[in-house]
């Protein structure tokens, strides 16, 4: 091995990398919140909506889950402008991530909702709660607790998958790394450090979400 590693070059650009990493977190968090809203709406409509709507949602889920995220991004960013819908790179990235997370989130929430015994719903209705109230207080919140770990994992997968949006020039961590390595010729060092940052973010998010779970669900129940 004759290669001399120069990690000081990477260190000199830590500000750019930090900015890229921050945008990665921002894009994924925004997509997570909006995607969860889409998933909640879908799971409600799938349970209570008219059958054409149910079919449409089932089709949406199958379509998203069986095509690559990269192609979904290309469709949002390159194909939609042909229809006159033009969006910036960051908006397209978030839109694609929301659509993607919405499909997976619906499936995860559905699994949680199915774990709620039917008797609970009947009891809530018998107590005079409206359908929406029943859904919110008796079905959705307990279901969220059950599927919380699965949602947390899906969020981490989304954050990691967001590296792909560098392909449409959204300047998150991967795109920043790409441009830095092409100007400094220190490809290995930059990719090595960026990969480490992703790993740290994944572990960090897991720790934070685990903490939130404990505060929100475990501690209360113990008290």
């Amino acid at each position, binding site marked *: *091995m004759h290669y001399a590693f120069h990690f000081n070059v990477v260190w000199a650009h830590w500000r750019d990398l930090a900015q890229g990493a921050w945008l990665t977190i921002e894009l994924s968090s925004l997509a997570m919140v909006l995607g969860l809203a889409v998933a909640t709406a879908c799971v409600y409509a799938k349970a209570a909506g008219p059958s054409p709507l149910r079919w449409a949602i089932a089709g949406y889920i199958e379509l998203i889950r069986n*095509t690559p995220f*990269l192609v979904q991004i290309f469709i949002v960013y390159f194909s939609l402008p042909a229809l006159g819908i033009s969006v910036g790179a960051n908006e397209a990235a978030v839109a694609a991530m929301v659509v993607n997370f919405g499909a997976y989130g619906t499936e995860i929430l559905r699994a949680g909702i199915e774990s709620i015994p039917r008797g609970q719903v009947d009891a809530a209705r018998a107590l005079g709660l409206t359908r929406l109230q029943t859904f919110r207080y008796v079905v959705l919140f307990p279901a969220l607790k059950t599927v919380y770990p699965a949602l947390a994992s899906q969020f981490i997968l989304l954050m*990691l998958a967001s590296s*792909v949006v560098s392909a449409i020039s959204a300047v998150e961590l*991967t795109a920043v790394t790409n441009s830095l390595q092409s100007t400094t010729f220190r490809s*290995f060092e930059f990719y090595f450090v960026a990969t480490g940052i992703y790993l740290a973010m994944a572990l960090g998010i897991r720790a934070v979400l685990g903490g939130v779970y404990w505060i929100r669900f475990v501690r209360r129940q113990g008290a």
Partner: protein
Amino acid sequence: MTRTFGLSEFLLILAAVRWTILLSLVAFVGGGILGFAVAIARTTSSRVLRLLTAGYIQAFQGTPVLMQLFLFYYGFAVLFDVQIDAWPAVAMAFTLYSGAFLGEIWRGSIEAIPQTQWEASACLSLGYFQQLRFVILPQAMRISIPPTVGFLVQLVKGTSIAAIVGFVELTRAGQLMVNVTFQPMVIYPLVAAIYFALCWPLSRLSRSLERRIDAGLGIKRHL
């Protein structure tokens, strides 16, 4: 003059499917061998082996595939002083990637077998490898089939990311065709449809296998 999208363009894109399939197969077979070794190592009594393989899984599940591809591509050149082509770099990176995921899936399957099965077979004076071969693995294999097929879907979709490093498979072929025809509105949805045709049957198979194996094991899921 730009080309218009016609039958011969469609066939060119379709021809690239074989690279998507071949890459998926190589990664699946190579990753399967690796994943098997990892699953065994994860469930042994050796602390060192368990920690090493846990680290490997965490490294590959906690970082983006795209970063793994870049690292492999540039890492090889740096560490071994050889420039490798896109195909071996991509094939090796995806093999390591699927090894981590399959290893984790199969570890779960092995651990799902009750401890009493190990104890009972030990009482019958079976050695460790005999226990694995005649008692544990045949049962674990049944449980592992649906998630393994499910992972295959993830792998086929994941290979689209190889397009970003320039490996010509389905997604890259679509990109190249967009560059000469300027018809992203037709081509990207078409590419998505081809992926769907590959993945959807696998997804359905995974689900029906799961239902059948659940029924065989007497597991009732809420439907």
